[in-house]
């Protein structure tokens, strides 16, 4: 979606909605329990971000995301590139992969709790499991989809072995791999919040369900905003890295548009 056609209209709409919310909860105080004023939520948000306890929850979730994602990336890349290069290997693991891949990550939560209990290890393992699959599939497609003409042209110019991999295979598979990395990164944030709701006594997922159940409503909204901001910030970081690393590829994907 074009980032250039931003105008003030969208920002005005968002501001109007926030003002309407604030006015509504101040005018109808019987609803203020469910809709605390935006100003209260924001104050709570700042309080939370500044407090030691709040930043510990944020840091816990962040560390789990990176830790689990790291393992997922490693597993996905290794499995995916081996499967992409060796048909036999893929045929051997295919039925297992096809059975495990559609299994939603939170469904294995009880098994993981059974083995490692609640806490860091459980969250990290489930994030790693969830993030492995998109990277695996995309790496597989990317490695398999290397154009035979490109490969043979490389060979003709005398590239072989590691050099062929570095100069032909990797650049040609990279766009696929990056899209897998992006999907998985988004998934990691969803999964960390989800697993923390069921099995953790730390992290933003725990904090949001805890504050909802114990009726600390402004705090619940504050955590929700914080989770949104975190998701946004992580996404932007990924995009920044991606647009730097993949600048050479942008020309391929430009499209004609009427609207």
């Amino acid at each position, binding site marked *: *979606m074009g980032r250039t*056609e*931003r*105008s003030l*209209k*969208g*920002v005005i*709409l*968002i501001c109007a*909605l926030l003002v309407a919310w604030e006015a509504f909860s101040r005018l109808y105080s019987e609803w203020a329990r*469910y809709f605390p004023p935006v100003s209260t939520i924001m104050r709570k948000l700042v309080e939370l971000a500044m407090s030691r306890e709040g930043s510990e929850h944020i840091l816990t979730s962040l560390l789990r995301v990176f830790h689990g994602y790291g393992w997922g990336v490693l597993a996905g890349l290794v499995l995916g590139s081996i499967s992409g290069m060796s048909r*036999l290997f893929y*045929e*051997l*693991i*295919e*039925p*297992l992969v*096809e*059975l*495990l*891949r*559609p*299994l*939603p*990550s*939170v*469904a*294995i*939560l*009880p*098994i993981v*709790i*059974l*083995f490692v209990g609640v806490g860091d290890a459980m969250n990290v393992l489930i994030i790693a499991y969830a993030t492995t699959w998109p990277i695996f599939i995309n790496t597989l497609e990317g490695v398999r989809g290397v154009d035979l003409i490109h490969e043979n042209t490389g060979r003709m110019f005398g590239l072989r072995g590691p050099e062929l991999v570095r100069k032909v295979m990797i650049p040609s598979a990279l766009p696929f791999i990056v899209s897998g990395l992006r999907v998985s990164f*988004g998934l990691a*944030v*969803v999964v960390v*919040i*989800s697993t923390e*709701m*069921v099995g953790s006594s730390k992290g933003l*997922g725990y904090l*949001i*369900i805890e504050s*909802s*159940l114990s009726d600390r*409503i402004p705090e619940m*909204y504050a955590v*929700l905003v914080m*989770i*949104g901001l975190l*998701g*946004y910030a*992580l*996404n932007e970081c990924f995009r920044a890295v991606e647009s730097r690393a993949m600048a050479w590829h942008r020309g391929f994907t430009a499209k*004609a*548009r*009427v*609207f």
Partner: protein
Amino acid sequence: MPVGAWAIRTRRWAAGVLSLIVVLAILEAVARSGYVSRNLFTPVSTILRTFSDLLVTGVLPREMLSSLARIGAGLLLAIVTMIPLGTLIGVSRLFRQTLLPLIELLRPLPPTALIPVAMLFLGIGEAMKISVIGFACAFPILINTIDGIRGVHPTVVYTARSFRFTRMEMIRKVLIPAASPQIMTGIRVSLPLSLIVVILSEMVGSVNGIGRYILIQQRSFNVPEMYAGILMVALIGYAINRLFLLVDQRVIVWHRASTGNR
């Protein structure tokens, strides 16, 4: 089909089944060897027996059906609201400028983070789960509809314009059909998300459903039942995936025929 292709397919199938059997046999052997506690690691044969018992007595189908009904309702909600909205945003610059910032603001929110909020308003009933599933499915469908509509080739639009299509005709006969493969992609992307949301929302607040079933069995140390429940989810997930690929292929075949691409 040439004989060679058939032979290759059979070989692939045989290799796959063989490796699956080997993995299951190893798991069975490890479980029976006693190195890992029986309470954690149930032999595959026991899991399968429990699974078939629970299937016959109707326990698993009942829990699974209530989860699937929630997914269906949430997905339907997202489809009927987001395809029209996405079309509107796709064709109208005004809608795009007004609504895109709000959408981009809400999009990075993990859908499961809304479960506590929905619980506050709607309790732990059906409405809570369906609305969170609807929210989860909304973004992939919306974004893909917008992109699909905007990605329609200019020539197609100009041709329709020169035939003096009205706005409604343009949307109904040109834009939505042309965008349908991408809309299908959006729906396909949203399916695994909806499975995550339904299972988690059942774990956090529900009286039934497969997510709650699995968690309750784990908490009461009925380990074979827990594994059987997870097997059920895996099979259903696989079936949904397969079914969708089938539908998707039909749409794509039609689309390829209409655009002349091979």
